[in-house]
């Protein structure tokens, strides 16, 4: 065995034969081959092999293939048409205009109904607002006659006459128009919820007090929270005379940015009428009992029983009078549930934890998380591992068979043709 050293590797000789070398390298290899018989043989072998492969010929492509792709027919024609159309400036312009118009029509189709709905909703809202304003102006005395007669006096007169009325009659009293009396407005207990974010909390607080004073209202409850490192918050339940509710709410809204607003109106007309009727009956009962006590004579036991009954009826009357006052107060004074939040500004002076402390905390948290993850994996494996293992064992063999079959098919499919 002898060793011959050549300046070029066999692969370079092959690349030279294939024309894959640069001009300089080609020149150098060519010169070397001219002098080295061994390298010349290597080059000749490569050329010979390629020539030998020329014997592997394939038949001519079928003529029908050409027919399918002849211009002007089938796929080629349709594709060319598409290309031509796509490149035509007029066609593209038309497509652009049509797309724009379609988009505009779509936009209008979506927008116009919304606009109409918005307009109708605005009209409705203004109508409702007008009605509410009218109701509010009447609500201070729901049964007050306009301009003169008083429903309460009406009730009183009837009570004096001792007339007992059915429920239908009561309903009539409330809802039906009577001669000399305009339609009485319903009794409505108004409730408003407001959430407002203010920039200057202290100034807003002062303004709130001023608003209450200006509208003769008061705060039924008020709570101010000033947590550390967070925005201050005020929660209050305000009572405002019903006629001044709209103005007061408008002034409150001006304090800052309204985040949430909700208005509620509970009609208590029926409740009030029932209460008045029951009150009248109880008073009449009380009067009759007092008459009995005054005019009749009898045993002491009977007298005591009548006195007890008078006391019970009196208690009921007082309770109902209290309920009546509360109800009327709810109607006369609207409730505003106010939430006033300060726009939070981070305090520059707030002491931040030191870097060391933060590092320590993050390290502890990191280790804890890692440990919990590890524990989770172990728990999962102990819980599901046997099942997974079982299924792997069951499926491994058929999967391997299928995979090997697929690979074998792939290898056979990549064999040579003719």
């Amino acid at each position, binding site marked *: 065995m002898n060793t*011959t*050293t*050549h*300046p*070029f*590797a*066999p*692969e370079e000789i*092959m*690349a030279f034969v*294939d*024309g*894959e070398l640069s001009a300089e390298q080609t020149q150098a290899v060519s010169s070397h081959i001219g002098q080295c018989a*061994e390298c010349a*043989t*290597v080059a000749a*072998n490569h*050329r010979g*092999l*390629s020539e*030998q*492969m*020329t*014997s*592997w*010929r*394939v*038949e*001519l*492509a*079928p003529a*029908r*293939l*050409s027919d399918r*792709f*002849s*211009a002007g027919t089938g*796929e*080629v*024609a349709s*594709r*060319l048409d*598409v*290309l*031509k159309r*796509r*490149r035509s400036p007029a066609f593209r312009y038309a497509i652009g205009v049509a797309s724009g118009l379609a988009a505009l029509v779509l936009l209008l189709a979506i927008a116009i109904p919304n606009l109409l709905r918005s307009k109708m909703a605005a009209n409705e809202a203004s109508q409702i607002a007008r009605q509410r304003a009218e109701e509010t102006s009447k609500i201070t005395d729901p049964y007050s006659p306009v301009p003169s007669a008083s429903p309460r006096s009406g009730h009183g007169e009837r009570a004096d006459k001792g007339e007992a009325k059915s429920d239908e009659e009561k309903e009539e009293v409330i809802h039906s128009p009577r001669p000399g009396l305009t339609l009485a407005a319903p009794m409505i207990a108004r409730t408003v919820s407001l959430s407002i974010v203010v920039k200057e909390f202290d100034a807003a607080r002062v303004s709130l007090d001023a608003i209450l004073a200006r509208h003769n209202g008061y705060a039924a409850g008020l709570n101010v929270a000033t947590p550390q490192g967070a925005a201050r918050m005020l929660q209050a339940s305000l009572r405002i005379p019903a006629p001044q509710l709209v103005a007061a709410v408008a002034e409150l809204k001006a304090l800052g940015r309204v985040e949430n607003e909700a208005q509620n109106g509970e009609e208590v007309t029926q409740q009030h009428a029932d209460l008045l009727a029951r009150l009248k009956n109880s008073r009449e009962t009380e009067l009759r009992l007092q008459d009995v006590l005054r005019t009749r004579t009898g045993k002491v036991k009977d007298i005591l029983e009548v006195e007890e009954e008078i006391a019970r009826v009196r208690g009921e009357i007082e309770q109902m009078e209290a309920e009546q006052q509360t109800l009327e107060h709810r109607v006369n004074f609207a409730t505003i549930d106010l939430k006033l939040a300060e726009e939070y500004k981070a305090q520059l002076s707030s002491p931040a934890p030191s870097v060391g402390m933060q590092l320590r905390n993050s390290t502890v948290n990191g280790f804890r998380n890692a440990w919990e993850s590890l524990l989770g994996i172990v728990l999962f494996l102990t819980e599901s591992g046997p099942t997974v293992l079982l299924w792997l064992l069951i499926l491994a063999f058929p999967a391997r068979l*299928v995979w090997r*079959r*697929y690979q*074998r*098919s*792939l290898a*056979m*499919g*990549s*064999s*040579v*043709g*003719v």
Partner: protein
Amino acid sequence: MQDALTALVLNSEALPQHAMDETPSRQPNPASLRADASTGVSDERLMLEFSKGSSDAFTELFSRYKQPIYGFFRRRVAESAQAEELTQETFVALLRAAARYEPRALFRTYLYAIGFKILRAHRRKTAFRAAFFGDRLSVPDPSKRDATESSLWVRRAVEKLEPMDREILLLREFEQLSYAEIADLLQLPLNTVRSRLFRARTALRNLLEPNAAPATQNAPQPIGRKGERV
């Protein structure tokens, strides 16, 4: 981009024409940047014209590449009908992709890349059907074909090569692709292409000429150091 395209087209037109036929050639790869002698227009320019809607350009491209693409498939699949179908698919894919064509590479590489993708899809589909649905793979029987004895030996020898080596050898010998084009097509490093091609040729030569003494001084041998053959 436009300048580069112009330069590419001009260069390709300036280069000598090299027929893209079935005959392997020892010429370096001027075929990759060629212009047809009859029309004098490069493949890339024809493709650009076709993408603008020229049917003549497509006809010319089809006439240039119909046989090479058919041969590409015919050497890799068992039946001529399959080769015909795959050739058709390749040109249909070309038609569909025409609007998006950008001459970043040679048209020839582009077309063979399409063909190669279609071939791989075909092989996967066939293997899948064979593995899961029991379809029989049609394996060619060289002895039943009308072929010379020499070509029979070549085919049998090529079939015994490792698949990737075989693919590289076929692309080089019959499709006349350069090393760089093969590397691009098969997503391999250039040096890998060269070494695998060398290995394939060595193996093929040993298969074709078993008495050629693979370890003789005439045959290229594994190299210990550069140029040193034992």
